């Protein structure tokens, strides 16, 4: 019997395991389906990770390396090349691997840290042929940065999320011509820094409010794409077509938390995040099962993944040692222009000094406030000079304030100041 089984050995799983160890758990196991620890960071060879956490700019592998080194100094056990197939409410973990076959492991607590996967072309349905040469940006990143395959010579990128932007620069450096980055929305989902350093540095045009309307194949490979400008209802405007001869299309159209295990276990899900509903300590609706990192909601900064996961690991340790949360529960509702919050529920009695609430806004805001209210009366406001859907926001709700709340729910709203 393990004290804790962590599913997934990315930054979330690593941080959760380390913090549970620090809090005194001894029998900890990380299960990872890949050949090594580090998760998606192994393919993110660019820098910009760790500014919050380590006060310096690290590359993805360097950031993961710091945590893998920390883990080495603990007694945490690791199973690589092993896939978790099922977990259940009795804390059983079904796994399979070439080395050990099928096994059922038991644990006092479980942390889910499976990360997310990329939306694929099928999920958004582009018209046209279905040839070779269409990749998600993340698969192209893995091919190029780890396996050593160049994915194409003339590339059009659909979606301006950070992974797509990073790949635009990466492919350019490796000698490909990136003809355009095409974005459906009137703003980019990526960081300004990436727009400047990955597109503008290399003269790659960004077409906002545009999309790919046709993919043409020749001999089974992409040979041409058509791009149209969109009207306010996101319909292609006739006559605005741009034509590109290219051999490759990369899709950077978003990430989806990987929650098959979570759903099958009967854990309550939040349709807004596509992740589990969690409490202040990252506990799911099944006691003793916690979730953290991209499997809960898509983060843009790995630094926040680590912080959140340390909370999950510490909470698993508290659960195993028998400290049960007491008192009532407050639901957190989304007010105007807030698309979700994590956590979705708070148990004030279980909040240390303050509860960290993460959320995203639905549109771009200048000089605005975030308001937390109960029964229509404001409890507290936070000023923000700038907010955008692409940038995760967070606020700290002090325990002292939460203790004064009588209502069974509070609402988080974003609005102009």
């Amino acid at each position, binding site marked *: 019997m393990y004290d804790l089984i962590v599913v997934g050995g990315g930054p979330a799983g690593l941080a959760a395991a380390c913090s549970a160890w620090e809090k005194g758990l001894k029998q900890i196991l990380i299960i990872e389906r890949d*050949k090594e620890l580090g998760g998606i960071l*192994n393919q993110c*060879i660019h*820098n910009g990770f760790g500014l919050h956490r380590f006060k310096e700019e690290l*590359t993805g592998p*360097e950031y993961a390396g710091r945590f893998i080194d920390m883990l080495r100094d603990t007694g945490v056990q690791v199973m690589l090349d092993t896939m978790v197939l099922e977990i259940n409410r009795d804390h059983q973990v079904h796994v399979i691997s070439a080395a050990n076959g099928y096994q059922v492991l038991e644990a006092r607590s479980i942390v889910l840290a499976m990360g997310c996967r990329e939306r694929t072309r099928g999920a958004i349905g582009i018209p046209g042929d279905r040839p070779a040469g269409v990749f998600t940006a993340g698969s192209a990143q893995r091919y*190029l940065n780890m*396996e*050593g395959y160049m994915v194409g010579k003339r590339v059009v990128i659909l979606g301006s999320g950070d992974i797509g932007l990073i790949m635009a620069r990466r492919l350019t450096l490796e000698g490909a011509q990136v003809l355009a980055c095409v974005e459906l929305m009137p703003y980019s989902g990526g960081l*300004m820094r990436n727009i400047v350093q990955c597109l503008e540095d290399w003269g790659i045009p960004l077409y906002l409010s545009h999309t790919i309307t046709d993919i043409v194949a020749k001999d089974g490979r992409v040979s041409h794409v058509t791009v149209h400008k969109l009207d306010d209802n996101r319909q292609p405007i006739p006559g605005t077509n741009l034509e590109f001869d290219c051999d490759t299309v990369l899709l950077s159209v978003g990430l989806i938390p990987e929650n098959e295990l979570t759903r099958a276990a009967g854990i309550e899900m939040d349709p807004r995040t596509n992740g589990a509903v969690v409490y202040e300590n990252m506990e799911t609706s099944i006691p003793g099962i916690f979730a953290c990192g991209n499997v809960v909601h898509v983060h843009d900064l790995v630094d926040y993944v680590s912080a959140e996961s340390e909370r999950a690991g510490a909470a698993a340790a508290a659960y195993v040692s028998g400290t049960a949360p007491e008192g009532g529960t407050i639901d957190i509702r989304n007010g105007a222009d807030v698309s979700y919050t994590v956590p979705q529920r708070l148990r004030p009695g279980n909040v240390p000094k303050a509860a960290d609430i993460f959320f995203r806004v639905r549109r771009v805001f200048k000089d605005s406030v975030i308001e937390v209210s109960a029964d229509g009366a404001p409890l507290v406001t936070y000023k923000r000079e700038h907010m955008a859907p692409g940038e995760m926001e967070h606020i700290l709700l002090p325990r002292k304030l939460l203790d004064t709340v009588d209502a069974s729910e509070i609402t988080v709203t974003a609005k102009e100041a």
Partner: protein
Amino acid sequence: MVRELVCIVCPKGCRLHVDEDNNYSVTGNSCPRGAEYGHHEIKNPTRVLTSTVRLDGGLYRRCPVKTDRAVPKGKLMDIMAALNDVSLQSPVAAGQVVLANVCDTGANVIVTKSL
């Protein structure tokens, strides 16, 4: 000439104006960090370069590397060309120098992952 650019130091994204004929002085910034960024970015833009080099005998065929400091933007493609000739044998350790003073930039190219 006055050049226009967006400050990327924080999410506010101030629009900076940098006067090339007036010692690259900056206006439009809301804080000193923006002035420094604008000045530097127009006068002498630099970047940290990250890429991969060939690796034999390791878990993967590519080993990630980076320049250990920012290098002039104009040198990035020269450094990429220099990296094409590098071939490493596993094991390598993070921090290990692959190319010293690459393309006379004063920067070293170092390994970023032990493989």
